[in-house]
């Protein structure tokens, strides 16, 4: 049963994946449309205080929205991916590299031998080899405006309980509120079936996109579709715009403002608008792709939900990496 779902999936996208990783880029893209849903408040800040934001344009309307940097998504997914590897293929890895003890998250200290390093890349290490990531994230934006999705907190000085300004108390980091929805497009380029499955599994099981080691930033990732083709697909920013326009039903400024300042959004409506928006954009730009929809994607995720399945696909992938990781001396 589970074998079936994976085989069917592999057969569907076969023209846009590789048998083995190759050093020279080709134009094989697997685009994933993901909706990240905050299940608890999250801190997405760069300076430690202010929520990340950007001004975006939707039709004629300009609005400041919350932002989830591409690199925050990478960092979080990579932490999960490395943890999964350590748990599942340490023995296999030790056959390749006797002293392997997991793989570091430090940029220049990654092992450069594991499936995760091969897929997500790594900067030059002591071995002086650098690998370009074959996973590309878009910067992603909230559907609702910054003032609607963010809460500011202040630790007030004694006696200042009712004063809320930056000078009277210590500002605490801004929070993105629970329920915030962030549409994200992630692109896998020139990857194998095992790498697609590994990435999907990571996306499915990763539930932390905020700071580590806190109760904040619990996220549920809904994979709304997998689109494989010879081109990269539409961006997170455009999908966010399309969702806003679809929910507003018009490009009328007032209707847009109403959507962007809503207390809550209907998850199912947003999911549907994301899919329609992504596909409309693709067809407008004449980008064709093979689609695996949310239901079929869920079957694939179900087929690899057991650790033993993931261990087996990582082991298969590991066996495919020898040529790829071999770097001729200059």
């Amino acid at each position, binding site marked *: 049963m589970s074998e079936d779902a994976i085989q069917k999936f592999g057969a569907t996208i076969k023209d846009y994946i590789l048998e083995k990783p*190759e050093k*020279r880029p080709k134009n094989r893209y697997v685009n994933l449309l993901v909706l990240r849903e905050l299940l608890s408040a999250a801190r997405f800040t760069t*300076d430690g205080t202010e929520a990340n934001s950007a001004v975006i344009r939707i039709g004629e309307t300009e609005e400041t929205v919350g932002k989830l940097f591409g690199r925050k998504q990478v960092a979080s997914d990579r932490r999960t991916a490395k943890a999964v590897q350590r748990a599942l293929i340490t023995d296999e890895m030790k056959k390749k590299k006797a002293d392997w003890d997991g793989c570091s998250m430090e940029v220049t200290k990654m092992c450069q031998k594991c499936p995760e390093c091969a897929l997500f890349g790594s900067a030059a290490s002591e071995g002086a080899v650098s*690998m370009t990531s074959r996973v*590309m994230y878009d910067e992603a934006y909230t559907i609702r405006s910054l003032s609607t999705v963010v809460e500011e907190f202040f630790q007030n000085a004694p006696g200042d309980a009712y004063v809320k300004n930056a000078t009277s108390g210590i500002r605490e980091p801004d929070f993105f509120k629970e329920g915030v929805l962030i549409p994200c497009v992630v692109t896998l380029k020139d990857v194998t079936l095992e790498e697609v499955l590994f990435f999907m599994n990571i996306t499915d099981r990763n539930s932390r996109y905020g700071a580590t080691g806190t109760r904040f930033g619990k996220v549920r990732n809904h994979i709304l579709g997998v689109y494989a083709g010879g081109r*990269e697909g539409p961006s997170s920013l455009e999908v966010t715009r399309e969702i806003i326009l679809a929910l507003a039903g018009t490009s009328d400024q007032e209707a847009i403002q109403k959507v962007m300042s809503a207390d809550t959004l209907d998850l199912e409506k947003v999911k549907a608008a994301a899919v329609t928006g992504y596909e409309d954009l693709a067809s407008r*730009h004449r980008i064709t792709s093979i689609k695996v929809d949310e239901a079929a994607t869920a079957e694939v995720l179900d087929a690899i939900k057991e650790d033993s399945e993931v261990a087996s696909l990582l082991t298969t992938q590991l066996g495919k990496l020898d040529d790829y990781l071999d770097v001729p001396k200059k």
Partner: protein
Amino acid sequence: MSATVAPTPLAAKQDMQVYEGVLELMGELFFATLEPGNRYVTKPLILNTALYYALGYARGSYVNGATGRRSKRQQPTYVEDTAAFADEIYVSVARPITPLRFTTENANARGDDYVQRNQPEKQMNSPTGKIGTRKQIQPGAKFRFFVLAFNGAVPDLPVYVRVGKKRTKALIEWNRLPVRRHAGSFLMNHPVLVDDLVSMPIGDIRFSRMIPFDVIEQGRFEGPYCAFTCTDGEEVCLPADLQFLRRWRA
């Protein structure tokens, strides 16, 4: 494969197509090649060296031995990587056509790349290898560049590309423009690399020092040129004998 290509003067080529690319940033754009604090940070140009790779006209490798610092030593790779197209396609530098919004971020103050720690430790997360601030261009900004195709070459015109140090996604809207060919005195009013030019301008020069290549943003020239009208009505003149890094191919 040879690293050098005999340069063919593009002026000698009969057939020429011009494609206008309007590139819109879908995320924040950051170049490591611009020094923090350098005043050119406020006048960003996307070099054609980056665009050749972004458009797929040049292909690198996913796995590389260390190249060390960005230096002149990297230049032969550009020449080699674009050898197949050098006679057929020319890509200009891209310049902004909308007002730009910037955000400034401490490049190394907090580790939000791969490592999270309370105290910053030396240069862990800085893409420039430096501690400082990075000034980034906000999404929505538009840049314009041109792809010139010669002798019937049909360039691939991808809609989405990746640019900058963080491989920011960008959307490109393409338009084919009718071209007029002339010869004589003209004002080049769109930036190109100094290394792409046959000769230096004779006047009205505006120059930007960039890394790894310097750019002439404007200059008066004498010789063959092409002129075309952009979709927003702007008239652009470019020398007809441009070739990507021609000074390195000689």
